[in-house]
């Protein structure tokens, strides 16, 4: 009897969910005339930005980006909270990879190039593919290479947390400044300039540079914490 009621309720729930999704109308009709036309039009005419993905992620859907950054921050904080007690008091490395002299010399050679590529990707986020997340991850990969190759390479946790909180606070402040200039959160309030210039697109490059610094600091801290975990 109990099972029968459960099945009946599940069937009713499934029926109403299915009906709702059917009435939403996913499909071609939705794609022909939708919000995408307005995005494509406004990206070029209002914002003067070449990369539509960037303009959607930072400007039209900027609040979502703030949510993503917050999720990453919470994940890294939770990991650090779990592993913090088990860390060595002296701060010694618990995971060591033996590296040959070829690896050491090669990573010393590649490290500046990787950092430069990462910075290029997030500074040029509004002109070419990529952006804050991608560039920040590339920068973190460079630090990862150095941490794996050298036993005594270390990054300061204080500097990382300062960079992270600085970038996060300024992201929110720039979002709040949109209330003064435009009226909504993360509204563009700066001059947009000419298209395809480095200094164009209003707040988009500034926000992406801040996101890049934040993501790079978070992921470097994550790798550093994992490498110093005591088993």
């Amino acid at each position, binding site marked *: 009897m109990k099972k029968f009621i459960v099945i009946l309720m599940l069937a009713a729930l499934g029926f109403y969910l299915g009906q709702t999704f059917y009435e939403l109308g996913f499909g071609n009709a939705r794609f022909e005339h939708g919000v995408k036309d307005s995005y494509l039009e406004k990206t070029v005419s209002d914002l003067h930005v070449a*990369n539509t*993905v*960037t303009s959607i992620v930072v400007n039209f859907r900027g609040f979502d980006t703030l949510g993503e950054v917050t999720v990453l921050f919470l994940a890294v904080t939770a990991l650090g909270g779990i592993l913090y007690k088990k860390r060595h008091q002296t701060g010694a490395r*618990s*995971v060591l*990879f033996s590296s040959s002299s070829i690896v050491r010399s090669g990573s010393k050679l590649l490290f500046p190039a990787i950092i430069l590529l990462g910075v290029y*990707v997030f500074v040029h986020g509004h002109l070419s*593919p*990529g*952006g804050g*997340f*991608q560039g920040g*991850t*590339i920068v*973190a*990969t460079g630090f*990862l290479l150095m941490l*794996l190759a050298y036993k005594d390479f270390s990054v300061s946790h204080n500097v990382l947390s300062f960079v992270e909180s600085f970038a996060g606070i300024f992201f929110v402040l720039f979002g709040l400044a949109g209330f003064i200039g435009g009226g909504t959160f993360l509204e563009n309030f700066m001059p947009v300039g000419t298209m395809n210039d480095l200094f164009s697109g209003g707040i988009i490059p500034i926000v992406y540079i801040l996101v890049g610094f934040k993501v790079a600091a978070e*992921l470097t801290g*994550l*790798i550093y914490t*994992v*490498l110093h*975990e005591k*088993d």
Partner: protein
Amino acid sequence: MTYLILIFFLLLLMLAAAVYSIVQKDLLYAVIATGVISLVLTVLFYLLQAPDVALTEAAIGVALTTIIFIITIRNTVRHEDDYNKKDDLKSAIE
């Protein structure tokens, strides 16, 4: 037509790497296979004209996730069967 064949071949490669990573008992090889999945996925995203997503997948899927898994293997055990033999690991988890 060649485009379709290329995409089909890449999808098949991804599927093969995924099956290999499940079947393989050596966890290091399994992690490398998941890295191969991400690498092929990066090429697919690029072919489907999504370079932004391709960059993300290359940086996070190929580099960071693989390395974090390798560090984890380094800290625990490399072979799947060793898990039951190592008692101190069990007590550490509990």
